[in-house]
């Protein structure tokens, strides 16, 4: 069954790598729902956060292909239970409307929106959260005079991750990697040998 997966990719900061990664999705006709690149916890290492809707089998193979790219250090995939994530949204609303219509003010307060810029003619609010929350606010603000709206890509933290420092040290050593191809049969002798 298709579900939302968040792919986290640690990479070198290299021109052209974004394209190299993006075409791995388009080649398989997979739509990227959201894509964010940013620095990571380790200086000089970049972090891609990519959200797609796919079946796990496909995602698993795709992540292995991504990890195979020369400038990619490591790639992980997680479902929504395994991560903490946020998206950021900006709303431009007519300032008159905010002053006149109590409903608008109440909505903004309810969704935890903060004012970023207040001008005579318009006010810009920001809010962050899961997509559903942002979508809902956008929906209700729409008929009440939403002038402009923009939403960022997802950024996500992996619950089980202990960061990349350790891994990077290992990568910098000039010896074979200790990563393994995980397999359901590893260390399960009985299941393998019931022939």
């Amino acid at each position, binding site marked *: 069954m298709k579900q939302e997966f968040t792919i986290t990719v640690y*990479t*070198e900061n290299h*021109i*052209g790598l974004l*394209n*190299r990664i993006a*075409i791995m999705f388009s*080649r398989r006709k997979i739509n990227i729902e959201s894509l964010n690149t940013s620095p990571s916890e380790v200086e000089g290492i970049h972090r891609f956060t990519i959200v797609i809707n796919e079946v796990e089998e496909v995602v*698993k*193979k795709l992540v*292995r*292909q991504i*990890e*195979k790219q*020369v*400038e*990619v*250090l490591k790639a992980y995939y997680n479902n929504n239970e395994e991560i903490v994530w946020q998206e950021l949204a900006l709303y431009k609303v007519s300032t008159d409307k905010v002053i006149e219509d109590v409903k608008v003010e109440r909505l903004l307060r309810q969704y935890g929106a903060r004012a970023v810029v207040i001008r005579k003619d318009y006010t810009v609010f920001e809010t962050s959260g899961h997509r559903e929350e942002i979508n809902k606010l956008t929906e209700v603000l729409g008929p009440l005079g939403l002038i402009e709206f923009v939403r960022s890509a997802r950024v996500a933290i992996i619950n089980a991750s202990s960061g990349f420092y350790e891994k*990077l040290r290992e*990568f*910098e050593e*000039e*010896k*074979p*990697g*200790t*990563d*393994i*191809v995980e*397999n359901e*049969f*590893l*260390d399960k*002798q009985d299941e*393998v*040998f019931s*022939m």
Partner: protein
Amino acid sequence: MSSATETMKTKKSESKETTTQSQVRVKANTSISGSVAVLEALVAEGVTDFFGYPGGAIMPIYDALYDYNDQLNHILVRHEQGGIHAAQGYARTSGKVGVVFATSGPGATNLVTGLADAQIDSTPVVCITGQVFAHLLGTDAFQETDVINITTPVTKWNYQVTDASEIPAALAKAFYIAKTGRPGPVLIDITKNAQVQKFDYQGYKPCTHIRSYRPKPIVRKEYIQQAAALINKAEKPFVLLGQGVILGKAEKEFKAFIEKAGLPTAATVLGLSALPTDHSLNVGMLGMHGNYAPNVLTNECDVLIAVGMRFDDRVTGRLDKYAKQAKVIHLDIDPAEIDKNVQATVPVWGDCKETLPLLTALIEKKEHKEWLNKFRTMLVEEEDAVIKDELHPTCEIMTMGEVLNVLNGFTNGSAVIVTDVGQHQMVACRYAKFDKTRSNVTSGGLGTMGFALPAAIGAKFGAKDRTVVAIIGDGGFQMTLQELGTIMQFDVDVKIIILNNHFLGMVRQWQQLFHDKRYSFVNITSPDFVTVAKGYGIAGKSIAKREDLKSSLQEMLEHKGSYLLEIMVGKENNVFPMVPQGCGVAEIRLK
């Protein structure tokens, strides 16, 4: 100094096998141009012969090359596609990295087919392309193309150099990436300003480590033990031999492995020649036009051991009908291949040169006589139904198989066989005898028609003391026949056999079998190939009668220098057996 062409023509076949840094001319801490740095890198990497075609944006490098003629043998091809296929052929027979130069724009785009071919067949190739001046990038300058982005999906790695000081490190990385791990093509695009720019050269340091690139994993002992236990218990083990064994230079290790446990082995198209054809455990070729027994018995074996192969769809047929009963042990250096098409019970991730001996140490000495006999019995069936008629036909017109059979009589498996794509390719792979590894050069994954002629040129430079026979169809030959010019200019000793059936034979076969014989645009007329060859100063002959076959092949092989032999074969012959598309391997058809 003598003229460049003269030097190129006279200088041949001195083999400069191992390179030492002493051959490098420029000392560290001197000021040199980017172009000289490129050539210094090639010398340091042990490049002796390479291919290319000059043009505006790569002229500074060619200018520097003028002074490197005694160390670097540049072969001028007739088209950049020919250049990269030649580099591939070179890499395939020599086991070294193939190198090709091309200019910007059309020069670079002409490399794309070869890059895709090298990518899918894991061939180590380094391409160096010229590019417009850095300040002109993105201005639609003359002969400017976005080569990096065009080639991204078909390269293992690519990089654009805009500053000369980056050149030594970029090329060191290029060679390292091309040849390590699962090999592949790398492209370095160098802007013209970087080629002419002088910089303070610090010497050439080969690359040995890139932190984000881990070509070799630590081998997991647990999996080796599991694999060995599985093989020891197996009653019907079956080994699939892929090109990984050749790329990993592990032919000896592979032989020791299968011999110890008496494991029947079939090869993929690209794995052919890693194990001698007449080895007692060699049961033939896998795949759509492979042998009958290995296909059928894939669905009967209890343990399937895949070594350095990727379960291509032409090997597996329908996946949901492929070896469902078997436990699968998959040895591969590329972790992305494991579980990609066929779920492995035991994945042995690693270099098979390392993993095979570990495995051999743990397996028991065994013979699987009865099981092996099953392959032999089924081979007899195939011989009766297909092979006899193909190799010893009673019809008047010659068959492709019979040509191969007579050729085997002369070469006895010692020749390098280079094939194009189509019926002749499948027939050659089925019937050519191989006694030595790196003897089968063909476009496997991409199926590139036009591959054979240029690849044969490269194959010859990669194996100068071996006989190279290019077997090509009448269609494929016409795709890259301009490379006859290269053969002429550099006296490349390749024997060319054109198997002419006046058709694009493989497509015609499919149209006959699956499209109601609606022969849509497969009827191809050809020039008089012998006259064409003659125009290039290449000797040749065309034959249509059986009684001329043996003597003509002999004449071709004994001829000093290149030779073209056109052989007229049956127009509507089909290649069998065949696993029709969408069928399982066990549904292989004998007719």
